[in-house]
């Protein structure tokens, strides 16, 4: 079990009052807060061991390089990767998805090939494929959802044939919370000779992930949604695949030799890390990984699940409110999107903010999904290790205020 009050003590920002109220921060799916351990790790480098990595033969540069590579090792252990070289640091999950799309997709896909994704993807797993499809002549195809907000596996199975070369799917929807069966998708993908990319932006922060059993060939995620800083993300890939993949960016640090008209790439992972990397951010992510590992990812998942179950129960008390996402907590993460007929999501978010409750409102960078649900915007509450039942109660109370202001309480 988790000691939530000890955890909350590590997040000074949670003491803030918003508009005179206790803050209920319910937007971790967009970006999580950071514990002092992460902040301290970054400040320590800047104060004591800062110099560019992989360059100088002097003490500071060596210390920074060691700390950077140690962060890579921590992430590799966290994911149970086969080796540290399978961890490529990027600036974000978006950059990780783009690195794969450009590095692998641009050089592999041909006209007539198919890229298979789902309608519940974040724009970061759709728009790069629009670009790659345009460049290569490959076709982008979609798996649909059931009425219960799950991936329609029956329909999906029919999509798998030898034309499919890559399957790019989320591990946990940032809107619905839905966790599709990655293992089954991996079997289907590998059965037709396709590679599987999992968008782990929500999955990796909220659930135990072991890349030896996940089934994916590539996994992208960011640091800032898992207690780490902004500006750092990770692309994990199977080493053999990474070695055959082309770099998407050229520059310093990623080469073995440069001549006037050509150059040779460095070994993985450096082949994919052109320029000075965000190494202080990587070190911050390493500290975040330590923090999460100390809690235990099974406990993180269980905590999210308990809060999600409680929130689904309490939100059902709000007249008219509908949740876009699975109604139970099976294979479901702690992102709860909802619609309150008669009050637009922006108005909900503004009113909730006045009550100290921070939620996201909008299309959540998933316009195709919202359009398929017949919505242009929804509000979303999401949980993490520092959230407590009191946050859910504050949400439900604030929704009552919104209904009163908009004259929906029928009184």
């Amino acid at each position, binding site marked *: 079990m988790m000691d939530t009050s000890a955890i909350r003590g590590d997040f000074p920002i949670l003491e803030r009052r918003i*508009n005179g109220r206790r803050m209920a921060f319910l937007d971790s799916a967009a970006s999580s807060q950071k514990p002092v351990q992460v902040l301290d790790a970054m400040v320590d480098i800047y104060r004591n061991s800062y110099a560019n990595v992989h360059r100088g033969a002097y003490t500071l540069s060596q210390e920074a390089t060691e700390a950077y590579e140690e962060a890579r090792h921590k992430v590799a252990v966290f994911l149970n990767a086969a080796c540290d070289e399978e961890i490529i640091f990027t600036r974000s999950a978006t950059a990780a998805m783009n690195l794969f799309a450009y590095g692998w997709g641009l050089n592999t896909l041909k006209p007539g090939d198919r890229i298979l994704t789902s309608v519940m993807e974040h724009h970061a797993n759709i728009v790069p494929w629009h670009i790659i499809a345009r460049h290569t002549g490959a076709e982008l195809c979609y798996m649909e959802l059931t009425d219960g907000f799950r991936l329609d596996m029956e329909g999906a199975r029919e999509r798998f044939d030898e034309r499919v070369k890559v399957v790019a799917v989320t591990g946990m929807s940032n809107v619905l919370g839905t966790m599709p069966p990655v293992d089954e998708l991996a079997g289907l993908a590998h059965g037709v000779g396709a590679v599987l990319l999992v968008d782990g932006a929500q999955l990796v922060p909220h659930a135990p992930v072991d890349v030896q059993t996940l089934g994916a060939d590539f996994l992208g995620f960011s640091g800032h949604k898992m207690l780490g800083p902004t500006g750092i993300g990770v692309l994990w890939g199977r080493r053999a695949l990474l070695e055959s993949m082309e770099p998407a960016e050229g520059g310093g640090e990623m080469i073995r030799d440069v001549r006037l008209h050509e150059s040779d790439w460095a070994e993985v992972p450096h082949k994919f890390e052109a320029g000075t990397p965000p190494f202080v951010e990587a070190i911050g992510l390493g500290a975040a990984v330590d923090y999460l590992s100390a809690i235990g990812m099974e406990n993180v998942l269980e905590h999210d699940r308990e809060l999600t179950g409680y929130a689904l129960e309490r939100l059902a008390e709000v007249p008219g409110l509908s949740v876009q996402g699975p109604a139970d907590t099976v294979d479901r993460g702690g992102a709860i999107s909802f619609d309150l007929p008669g*009050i*637009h*999501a*922006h*108005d909900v978010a*503004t*009113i909730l903010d*006045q009550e100290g409750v921070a939620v996201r*409102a*909008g*299309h959540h960078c998933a*316009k195709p999904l*919202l359009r398929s649900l017949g919505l*242009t*915007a929804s509000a979303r509450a999401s949980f993490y290790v520092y959230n407590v039942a009191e946050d859910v109660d504050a949400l439900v109370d604030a929704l009552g*205020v919104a209904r009163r*202001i*908009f*004259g929906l309480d029928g009184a």
Partner: protein
Amino acid sequence: MALEDLYREVILDHYRSPRNRQALDRANAVADGNNPLCGDEVRIELLIEGGQVTAIGVTGHGCSISQASGSMMGDAVKGRTIETIRTLTGRFKGMMSIDGANDPGLDPNRPGAVLGDLESLQGVRKFPVRIKCANLPWTTLEEAIKRFVSTD
């Protein structure tokens, strides 16, 4: 700040029962506007005859602020000349900006006093992220007027 400043009854009334909410059979100036960040969408259709807006259609969807602003705007511009509408648009946007209070023609404490019902949107200024919601129909109106092709 009080939510009552933002959600005035007149705003909620326009949100629930928007005026001029129909597509025009005949329009000679049309523009679509949207806020890509939040997804608010509005379409403005105008029939401009003899330098006057003789009909206006305001459709789309979005939050109470963008929709009420569009509804009130429709009432305010119908029957007015393009020249008057330009002045009105300037005043509305002035009311929504901090600079608006510096307009010598306006009461610095109540820059929206000349705008009738539209003054009720002045409270939006205290919620900076919502100002673009209030301005969206007006920016779209300006765009539609720019696209007007005179057939007179």
